[in-house]
């Protein structure tokens, strides 16, 4: 057993840390978040040049063959800086689905472009009534000639605006909650029959809702086996959850450091407020939540490659539940300990709170994963 990083992993960490330090001062981040696109194409190119966009892909397609541990290392560093580029959406989710389900042709057409920074992806899975259930798919895809016709509504697709291609889950057979009968389709953003509504999310990122109205796609748009996408979706979402846990750990650690620094500096009643025991204990609790989350995040990164499905799923549910609970506590208390200062948009701590708030929701909130864990443990 070993939680230490290898030399190469250490170098990866150093390089992402340096990127964050150089490009993600809180002012720079705020400016980016408020810009039209909400992230920087220059950063994206830099990430491609540094090889990060190819990190989890196999060497045959031009990647670096990294695993969940490498992803976690990167995400943790990015979490510290609240990085805005669509790494999770494009590389982990989109790239993951294409490599897991796609044909050789599809992989060849997409992954090298992703690695070079020339193509962005987004995964449209959620629907107005699906909440967190990946199997709750009402969007339909019916066979028509050689291809399919898609109809439905996909909600809160992170980075759906910037993506060149949207990967849509749709039902080719069965009923709303069935795991069987779900298929994945590659859809060009801007295709006719696809209406997009862009908006900002509370964490400073970008998302979109999509309406699919008699959207026609060819047979080559089908990603993977018709009706058999659910296990692939689950697997890739597990990786995304692992990545989000790591991002949250980075964000919590940074929020705790900022807060710790603040309560040492801020004076009231003639002393630093960090001298008040109630705040000391609160800070210790925040620190403990972040440490517990770090352990769970490392654990899940190592367990994501397990073949034992039940063991793997339990690990994912437990990690997300712990991280969700911690993210709320750390985010909220960081603001509390800052007093009025914590409520201002200009100061960085609120941005950590807001990203931690959405991480808690993404791919199932704390309650959802506690429940899942209980079911898997029964």
């Amino acid at each position, binding site marked *: 057993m070993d939680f230490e990083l290898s030399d190469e992993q250490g170098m990866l960490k150093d390089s992402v840390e340096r990127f964050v330090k150089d490009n993600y001062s809180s002012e720079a981040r705020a400016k980016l978040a408020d810009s039209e696109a909400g992230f920087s194409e220059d950063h994206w190119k830099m990430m491609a040049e540094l090889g990060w966009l190819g990190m989890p892909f196999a060497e045959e397609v031009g990647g670096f063959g990294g695993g969940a541990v490498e992803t976690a290392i990167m995400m943790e560093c990015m979490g510290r800086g609240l990085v805005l580029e669509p790494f999770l959406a494009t590389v982990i989710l989109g790239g993951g689905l294409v490599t897991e389900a796609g044909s050789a042709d599809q992989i060849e057409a997409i992954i090298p472009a992703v690695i070079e920074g020339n193509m962005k992806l987004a995964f449209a899975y959620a629907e107005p009534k699906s*909440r967190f259930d990946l199997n709750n798919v009402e969007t339909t895809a019916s066979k028509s000639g050689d291809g399919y016709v898609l109809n439905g509504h996909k909600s809160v697709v992170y980075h759906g605006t910037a993506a060149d291609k949207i990967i849509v889950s749709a039902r080719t057979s069965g009923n709303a909650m069935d795991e069987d009968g779900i298929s994945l389709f590659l859809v060009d953003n801007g295709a006719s029959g696809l209406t997009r509504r862009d908006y900002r999310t*509370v964490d400073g990122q970008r998302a979109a809702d999509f309406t699919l109205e008699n959207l026609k796609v060819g047979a080559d748009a089908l990603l993977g086996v018709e009706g058999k996408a659910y296990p692939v979706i689950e697997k890739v979402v597990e990786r995304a959850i692992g990545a989000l846990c790591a991002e949250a750990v980075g964000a919590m650690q940074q929020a705790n450091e900022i807060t710790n620094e603040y309560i040492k500096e801020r004076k009231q*009643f003639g002393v630093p407020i960090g001298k008040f025991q109630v705040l000391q204990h609160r800070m210790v609790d925040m620190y403990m939540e972040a440490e517990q989350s770090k352990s769970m995040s490392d654990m899940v990164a190592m367990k994501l490659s397990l073949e034992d499905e039940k063991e793997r799923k339990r690990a994912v549910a437990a990690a997300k539940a712990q991280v969700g609970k911690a993210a709320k506590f750390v985010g909220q208390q960081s603001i509390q300990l800052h007093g009025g200062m914590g409520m201002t*948009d200009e100061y960085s701590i609120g941005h950590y709170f807001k990203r931690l708030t959405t991480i808690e929701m993404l791919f199932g909130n704390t309650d959802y994963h506690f429940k899942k864990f209980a079911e898997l443990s029964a």
Partner: protein
Amino acid sequence: MDLSFSKEDLAFRDEVREFLQNSLPPDVKDRCDRGLHPTREGQIRWQKILHEKGWMAPNWPKEYGGTGWSITQKYIAAHEFGQASAPIATPFGVSMVGPVIYTFGNQEQKDQYLPRILASEDWWCQGYSEPGSGSDLASLQTKAVRDGDDYIVNGQKIWTSYAHYADMIFCLVRTDPKAKQQEGISFLLIDMKTPGITVKPIYGIDKENSLNEVFFEDVRVPVKNRIGEENKGWTYAKFLLGNERTGIARVARSKRQVVRVREIAAAEMSGGRPLIEDPDFIAKLTRIEVDLMALEYTELRMLSMLANGKKLSAEPSLLKIRGTEIQQRLTELMVESLGMYGAPYEPERDYAGRNDIHPGPDYAHGPMAEHLYLRAATIYGGSNEIQRNIVSKMVLGL
């Protein structure tokens, strides 16, 4: 002990209900229900309607324009206002400075300011906090130096809610720098149009502007604008804070929020059935509801003690602590009930009106904004840590 309502009380309840149904402007109600900041115009329009009805200041004595309601009637009105999402008057005039003026002010001040508060001719703001003086308010530095019939005020206030809407500000200023902290403070009423005052907006984590910095540079304030005695301002300030803490519990609003959470959770689906049928969700909501009921009866018990001439020490702090915790838990649960539609968020100022059409269901517009803003509820009005310090010292003698 008796909890029943008399026939008159029930008739009063019907009167309030009917009035709100007929007179509350729909746009004002909508913003209040969603938990959005009021607009200045909408708030004033509504307050004028309240004033015409004579219901602007339920807590004032009748002689100054109060309603003369019994505590039961006040309770009934608060409940009905809460259920109807009818805003109460902005607190800075009616609940904060008004009682200070009629309790400690002179006749001229009463005549000049109280009617203008009732008629919404003056929007007041509260100039207490400073960059270096938040929880430790008594360390405040804004100076007022006597010059003939004027004070000359220099310094800075911060976190001043709605200063950008305000006509008047009540300020704590240091008039004796040599005295012990609490003994060198005076309470001044200052016209916001006085030369030398600058208001600078602060944007909150909700990306809206309700907070401000207020700068004073050689601002001349007539000595007659001082409340009570020079250097006795701390006494008046504490009196005001005591009132502030009671109102801040906002029980009636939280009761309405419980209903809203139920409504949203009935419309939202989870695992193929309404979220409201999810046992975990219900358990969470129920815990909050029971805490809220306990708070409601704690508040009523305290009000009844006051009505019977008993004195309270720091008990209102309890209302503030528990009331704000409940407000936060409720908005958090409301956001949670929205699933991923909790995440879309665009501040109103940048996209005039755009956020009015939320990408999700209509009820998803509001909860996140309120959730963000209400993180402040455990900070403002004396932070909850400070309130706990007060209770442990004053009530428990620790």
